[in-house]
């Protein structure tokens, strides 16, 4: 039994089989990586988790209830929080506001007409957001707008926005894509730091360095099917993986 159970998911785009009988069990508290060559179906699979795509057949169960057919905000309210490939933030708002908004969403639900109380009156939200900003190392910039930040900083901000909601399951879509080595390492450290808190994570990643530093378990996707699922050390030596993904080269 996993916290996220994917059963026999199929998804076709016209004649193209993007996903073919995909099964996946993600254990609570683990970091589960999904890797695979380009076009293997990683993003399609992730989009099925968050309601952007609906599988043709199969089920996606989270904590015993289905995720299929839910709207994005409902999936978030259920505890599945997503980090985007390119950081998605509120670029015209201050960093603090960026983190306070998800904190409000967590506390007040999908909608609350809180139109006449000053934001400053909600001290606990502010403190929670500040705490989170401190943790990702952006506390000093709290009043700046986020539009001019580096990509690494934007990623950290987005992580803060996601983590302030105390997610049950965190979906990371190539969290270090397009980052410098230093930013990548900083992000890995950050993810490890918060990994200790028992947040379940699914990481989709190209960068093997990131995958092997983070993951407890790895599923390898090729041509829409999971060809292997195992712990990282076994994945490294697996011939099937090397053939499908690494083109025969040794790691």
């Amino acid at each position, binding site marked *: 039994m996993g916290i996220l159970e994917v059963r026999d998911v199929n998804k076709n785009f016209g004649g193209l089989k993007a996903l073919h009988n995909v099964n996946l069990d993600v254990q609570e508290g683990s970091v589960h990586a999904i890797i695979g060559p380009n076009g293997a179906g990683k993003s399609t699979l992730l989009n099925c988790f968050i309601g952007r795509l609906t599988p043709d057949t199969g089920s996606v169960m989270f904590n015993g209830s289905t995720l299929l057919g839910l709207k994005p905000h409902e999936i978030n309210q259920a505890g599945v929080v997503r980090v985007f490939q390119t950081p*998605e*933030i509120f670029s015209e708002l*201050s960093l603090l506001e960026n983190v306070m908004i998800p904190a409000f969403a967590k506390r007040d639900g999908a909608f609350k*007409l809180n139109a006449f109380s000053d934001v400053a009156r909600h001290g606990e939200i502010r403190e929670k957001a500040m705490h989170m900003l401190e943790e990702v190392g952006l506390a000093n910039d709290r009043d700046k707008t986020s539009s001019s930040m580096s990509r690494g900083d934007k990623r950290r901000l987005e992580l803060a926005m996601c983590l302030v909601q105390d997610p049950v399951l965190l979906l990371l879509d190539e969290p270090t894509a397009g980052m410098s080595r230093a930013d990548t390492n900083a992000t890995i450290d950050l993810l490890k730091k918060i990994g200790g808190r028992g947040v379940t994570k699914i990481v989709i990643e190209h960068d093997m360095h990131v995958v092997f530093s983070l993951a407890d378990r790895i599923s390898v996707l090729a041509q829409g099917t999971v060809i292997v699922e195992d712990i990282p050390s076994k994945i490294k030596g697996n011939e099937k993986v090397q053939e499908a993904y690494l083109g025969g080269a040794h790691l």
Partner: protein
Amino acid sequence: MLSLFTKSSEKSDLLLLALFAVVVFAMPIWLAPFGAAYPDLMQRFAIYGIFATGFNILFGLTGYLSFGHAAFLGVGSYTAVWTFKLLGMNPIPAIIAAIIVAGLFALLIGFISLRRSGIYFSILTLAFAQMCYNLAYSVLTPITNGETGLRVLRDDLRLFDAPTVGDGGPLLSHIGGIEMTGMPGFYFAAVLLVIMVGLAMRIFRSPFGMMLKAVKTNQTRLNYTGVNTRPYTLAAFVISGMYAGLAGALLCVIDPLAGAERMQWTASGEVVLMTILGGVGTIIGPILGAALIKYFENIFSAFNDQTLNDIFSFLPDQLQEGFVSVTSLFVGEGWNLSLGILFVIIVVFLPGGVTEGLNRIGRFGLRRLGIGHKSKNEDETSPAPGE
């Protein structure tokens, strides 16, 4: 100095509102040198200030550009006149009824229009407003009295005050015997303006307002943050529709007549212009914009060929004739042409509106005077929360 208004810190809010109230109530004094201190014009400043403030709650915060807000102004007006007709000339019930009915209209129109965003939304609101205009102008003539316009008649029911108003006096709205025309009318509208601006300030600084700003910045992100954006935008739409309804009712409080032309697309466009002229997303901007437009409308409309001939009389006859015929295109009946040109100029050159323009000038001035140190400059340039 203007950044005082655009950038609100929590403690200064009340102070600012008090300052604003003083400025508004003192209009008869400080507007006198501009020749604008007569009640009729100041009433319009206050009323259109409310209209634009409400519009700004939608457009300034969420970025949804409604092109049909005049519909709610018109609905408010018709409701107010009907309340006068049925209940009597007291403005309070009329205002309350207008706000409620305009809010219901906004709920209905918003529910459908907000299914789409961006350009679609603008087009849909424009179409709805045009539909309301057609309804008022012809289809619903029994309710709206068509092109003649709806007014209060002597033999109307007027449940509560029919006996008290004599047969002789004009049918004017009044509270406790004070007729809502002239200066009392202005002060009545001014009080409501201050209240509505105070409410708008609260909304701007509330968690709700913050969510609306987030809608404007990145709606997709907000959805994946667990927020259902539709009810937020709908609430903003309804609130701004209620502001418009109130403004519409006030127009009838000072002059109990409602006509369909109030709902035309030009009226919807005017409130958009007021808001961007003053400065979208700032508290004071839309009010400033409303006042400027109404002021210039007043001045420009007053010109006619006679006054123009007087102005250019120092020129040789031929030139005088030429100048008069050219300028007469832009004044009097031609006010709309000036309005259109102003529209284009503002959008092209100053999309941030007058408040941004003044801020720029202010910063430039500070730098020239050597007052603006680096840190201070940075502080001034950082966008106000509302922008």
